[in-house]
């Protein structure tokens, strides 16, 4: 069966520090991969999605970037975090276009 792993679960970072969040999927090949952000009490905002290695689409201009160095690995990064980057970051994967997206457990990021 397929599983998705996301880490860390919780992260507290100072403003201006770098960020690296990792997500890996097991049990499937060539998944579509996604990064979402959920601000407190709000809906999900799609940040990036990827349909293949080194194929990244950005949905929202910001100081975040994403990379997919391997088929089942998706990384969310920032060189300098802003206060507004706080939130709950969720990684997700899907197999085919009409299949649901399956979410990781999320990373709760607090910027101080």
């Amino acid at each position, binding site marked *: 069966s397929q599983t998705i792993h996301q880490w860390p679960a919780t992260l507290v970072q100072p403003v201006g520090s770098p960020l690296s969040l990792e997500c890996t999927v097991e049990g499937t090949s060539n998944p579509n991969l996604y990064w979402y952000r959920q601000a407190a009490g709000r809906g*999900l905002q799609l940040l990036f999605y990827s349909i293949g290695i080194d194929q990244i689409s950005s949905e929202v201009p910001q100081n975040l970037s994403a990379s997919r160095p391997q088929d089942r690995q998706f990384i969310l990064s920032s060189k300098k975090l802003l206060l507004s980057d706080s939130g709950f970051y969720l990684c997700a994967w899907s197999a085919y276009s*009409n299949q649901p997206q399956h979410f990781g457990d*999320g990373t709760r990021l607090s910027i101080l």
Partner: protein
Amino acid sequence: ELKVEQNPLFLSMQEGKNYTIYCNYSTTSDRLYWYRQDPGKSLESLFVLLSNGAVKQEGRLMASLDTKARLSTLHITAAVHDLSATYFCAESGGSNYKLTFGKGTLLTVNP
């Protein structure tokens, strides 16, 4: 721009009662998804609706899709406390890859 609107955004109901959450979307897509999110947790897929008239049921929850009206409903029957969560609908807007989520409906079931 694809819009997905849920209502109500907040719903407080008593155990044993029935209620419906509505999800309106702005495109002609025929794919609609419902998710559940418990407080502080991730999202769990509930239903996938892939055609006009599709109806799916799981326990006390039933989801339906009317693509002509661009409307999906999530009906709750005889609510129990364990159903308390935030429910999201999401729609693909014709994209093979992306979903647009509604703002979510925070459901609280009171004993």
